[in-house]
């Protein structure tokens, strides 16, 4: 199968990774720069920046991290914090010239945080929109159906295009990839079907679709029963099914392999089976991936 190369937003500048947390704890800007550079060298198209809780308690540190990273890499950045105030600091600190004139990414806006769209007045940016939750009766609700994912993607995209004059190329829809190990409600199936609906909507032609790929294979053992590396095979099983539906970007680790699996791959075939199941049936099938 020929496939367009996935664009990668490097995910490693995030205290969720233990080694990165140590860099943040020590305010080690040199180490953070090296980590950003390593991601660019491995093929990252963007560097995502998530400094965790410190964004709330020490906003100056966020600016230091952005400046430090921009001294080390010449690719654009993605700012991962769902707050207007934090995005404001990020967008004001960002030096577009150092990224070859490329716009940053606001990561992310959801239907119940539409006010964050105002951050677009600070500087032109690309926007990641969250399609996994919707606004209903004034509150955010988790989507459970592909039609709901598609509905949110369409409403938010329309708003960004009509009200904020965004190009479709600047809209990135996060279809939200659930952890397979806990997906007893068919949420991965929902994401894939939602993607297909978005992909087939001519009004949305040109928008991008992304997901945090590292989630999908989490909390499982290292090896599948066939000896293949389980986490990465699950990630690749997901991209194998998602890319034909228009999935063209990942938030992931640039030195990991996200290429499609062969059609007869054991993990791919199990993955297909699991995502069509729910409840204990899904867990039982999942267990057969790593337990004889």
């Amino acid at each position: 199968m020929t496939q367009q190369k996935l664009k990668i937003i490097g995910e490693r500048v995030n205290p969720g990774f233990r080694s990165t947390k140590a860099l943040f704890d020590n305010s080690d800007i040199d180490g953070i720069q090296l980590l950003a550079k390593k991601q660019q060298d491995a093929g990252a198209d963007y560097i995502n920046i998530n400094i965790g809780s410190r964004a709330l308690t020490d906003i100056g540190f966020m600016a230091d991290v952005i400046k430090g990273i921009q001294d080390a890499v010449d690719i654009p950045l993605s700012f991962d914090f769902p707050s207007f105030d934090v995005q404001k600091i990020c967008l004001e600190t960002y030096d577009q010239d150092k990224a070859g004139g490329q716009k940053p990414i606001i990561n992310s806006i959801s239907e119940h945080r539409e006010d964050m769209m105002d951050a677009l007045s600070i500087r032109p940016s690309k926007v990641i929109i969250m399609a996994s939750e919707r606004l209903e009766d004034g509150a955010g609700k988790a989507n459970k159906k592909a039609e709901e994912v598609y509905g949110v993607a369409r409403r938010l995209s329309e708003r960004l295009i009509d009200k904020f004059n965004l190009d479709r190329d600047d809209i990135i829809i996060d279809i939200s990839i659930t952890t397979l190990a806990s997906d007893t409600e068919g949420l991965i199936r929902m994401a894939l079907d939602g993607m297909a609906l978005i992909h087939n909507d001519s009004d949305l032609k040109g928008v991008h679709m992304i997901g945090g790929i590292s989630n999908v294979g989490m909390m499982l053992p290292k090896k599948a029963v066939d000896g293949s590396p389980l986490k990465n095979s699950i990630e690749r099983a997901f991209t194998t099914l998602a890319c034909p539906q228009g999935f063209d970007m990942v938030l992931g680790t640039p030195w990991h392999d996200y290429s499609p699996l062969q059609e007869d791959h054991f993990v791919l075939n199990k993955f297909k089976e699991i995502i069509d199941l729910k409840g204990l049936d899904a867990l039982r099938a999942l267990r057969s991936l790593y337990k004889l």
Partner: protein
Amino acid sequence: MSTERKTLINYIVEMAEDEANALARKMLDNGYDPLELLSHCREAMDIVGSRYEQGEYFLPELMMAGEMLNDISGIAKPLIQHAGGEEKKKSLGTIVLGTVYGDLHDIGKNIVTFMLEINGYEVIDLGIDVPIAEFISAIEEHEPQVVALSGFLTLAFDSMKETVEAITAAGLRNKVKIMIGGGQVDEAIMFHTGADAFGLNALTAVSLCKGWMGEEATT
């Protein structure tokens, strides 16, 4: 250890859900004390939990064991109530728990709920994306000793802070201990939110509650 007890624990630990269910039902049909049966389930869960901690078991096993326990509890609990509401007496304390507003994650919260319940606490689970007012009214209604705020997204930190502030404003803060968990919580976030403690996993949540409310002396 009686054979039935040993076998039931073994079935749960080894993920033999059909066998575990059938045996539990048979034991209860034969007049086995439902509370004692549930305490065997807790023993089994302790083993599953420790295998999980040691990297021998993974999230699916935790969830499967949880489902098995739910099923068995479903059969056993009506019998306990029938026997005179002893279960209520057994509760070591009450915890009001929920994922704060703006955040929809529930896996961690569900595991914490489950671990607290099998350790003898009564958990009022308010669900996900819980409005502040709902926490307040649940505290007023259930008078818990502990409030547990869960959140995975970074935006949850502000929701947690606002929830704690509202609990204070409602005059309820000195009546409850507040613990936070989920995602990337740490000491800085604990101070930011005004909580009393934080936990990185469900076992810490149980330890915190044991510290605050005590634990059963015997099993």
